[in-house]
């Protein structure tokens, strides 16, 4: 049998740069109150959300991704030609073929980087990060761009009291590259398809096309069931990720959970017994829930405001529709 030469990768991987794009239009709760019976006080107390950004026609999934990626590449101090892989996590790019990742890879000026989209809902960033780490350590790319991007406003039913106030748009990107020390810990991830009904698209596109349903599909959820799962099961997953990385709550500098709802964040902080010294991302207040984009967007903001700094140890956890989840410990870029 002929001998196949193995690929040779880097010893470890880490995040080298981060960038974000928030659409120009800021939408306060008052706008949400035009279509649902609610109040600013209720929305703030149940979710922490004060404002969110909604994209305009020019702020497409590709355009927002390119903006965020450009910043991440500059932050990493590399050039676009060095990027060997582009992974885009999104559920709100409405042209299924080709993958939007290819357009982004081209417009950024990569040298024909491998490019593909993944669908892992609000866990998409952690899924992408894990793939990127594998590609770098295995040797099929030196630098990989991981992008979380959503235009959830396109998939929001503004008359649905359970979700109208929740979602926002935006893009977050990181450059992952080679490292001499581990900069991304073991990923604790998984899926619970038996709970697929708790967050989902109302109907398939084909039902809408055939006229079977008149209303454009949107994301619906069983809020209480999702909340219970998040506060109970996801705190356990977060703890497992800390344990897997050999990091105690005291060692941790920053906690960046998926920005789904500030009440979930509060509950996790309590359950994990995080000390006061840990900086907690609360970007949801002004960004809403941007699914796959929420973790890199929150990361970018914490670093930009100085609340977190390069080299800090951060626990990240994403969770959502699937249900799916992914948690890991990273060194901040």
């Amino acid at each position, binding site marked *: 049998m002929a001998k196949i030469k193995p690929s040779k990768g880097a010893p470890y991987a880490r995040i080298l740069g981060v960038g974000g794009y928030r659409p120009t239009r800021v939408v306060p709760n008052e706008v949400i109150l035009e279509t649902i019976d609610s109040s600013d006080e209720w929305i703030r107390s149940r979710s922490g959300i004060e404002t969110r950004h909604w994209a305009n026609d020019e702020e497409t999934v590709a355009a927002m991704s390119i903006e965020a990626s450009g910043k991440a590449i500059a932050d990493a101090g590399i050039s676009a030609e060095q990027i060997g892989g582009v992974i885009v996590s999104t559920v709100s790019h409405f042209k299924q073929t080709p993958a939007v990742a290819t357009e982004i890879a081209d417009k950024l000026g990569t040298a024909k980087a491998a490019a593909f989209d993944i669908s892992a809902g609000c866990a998409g960033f952690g899924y992408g990060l894990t793939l990127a780490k594998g590609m770098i350590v295995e040797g099929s790319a030196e630098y990989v761009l991981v992008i979380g991007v959503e235009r959830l406003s396109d998939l929001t039913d503004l008359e649905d009291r359970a979700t109208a106030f929740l979602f926002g748009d935006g893009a977050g990107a990181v450059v992952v590259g080679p490292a001499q020390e581990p900069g991304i810990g073991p990923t604790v991830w998984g899926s619970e398809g038996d709970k697929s009904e708790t967050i989902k698209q109302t109907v398939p596109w084909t039902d809408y096309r055939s006229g079977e349903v008149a209303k454009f599909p949107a994301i619906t959820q069983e809020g209480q*069931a999702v909340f219970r799962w998040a506060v109970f099961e996801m705190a356990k997953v977060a703890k497992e990720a800390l344990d897997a990385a050999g990091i105690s709550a005291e060692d941790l500098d920053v906690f960046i959970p998926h920005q789904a709802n500030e009440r979930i964040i509060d509950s996790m902080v309590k359950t994990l017994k995080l000390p006061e010294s840990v900086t907690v991302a609360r970007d949801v207040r002004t960004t809403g829930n941007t699914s796959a984009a929420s973790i890199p967007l929150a990361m970018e903001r914490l670093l930009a405001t100085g609340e977190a700094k390069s080299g800090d140890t951060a626990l990240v956890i994403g969770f959502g529709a699937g249900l799916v989840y992914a948690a890991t410990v990273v060194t901040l870029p």
Partner: protein
Amino acid sequence: MAATQEEIVAGLAEIVNEIAGIPVEDVQLDKSFTDDLDVDSLSMVEVVVAAEERFDVKIPDEDVKNLKTVGDATDYILKHQG
């Protein structure tokens, strides 16, 4: 061993204190979680999750909305504890 009514009320009082910061002595059988104890619908989910662990019961989502008072929750746990 199954918990008694007094033990369940005392346990719920500790849980409500932990989650909503209400003094334990305020948590009485006739008190409504939302109207008297400042436990909103999401805090109630946290109370239920904590009570499930503590008393070894399963309280499904569809039953949670029927637990209006501390007495309702206590009766439910008395009846369903494992």
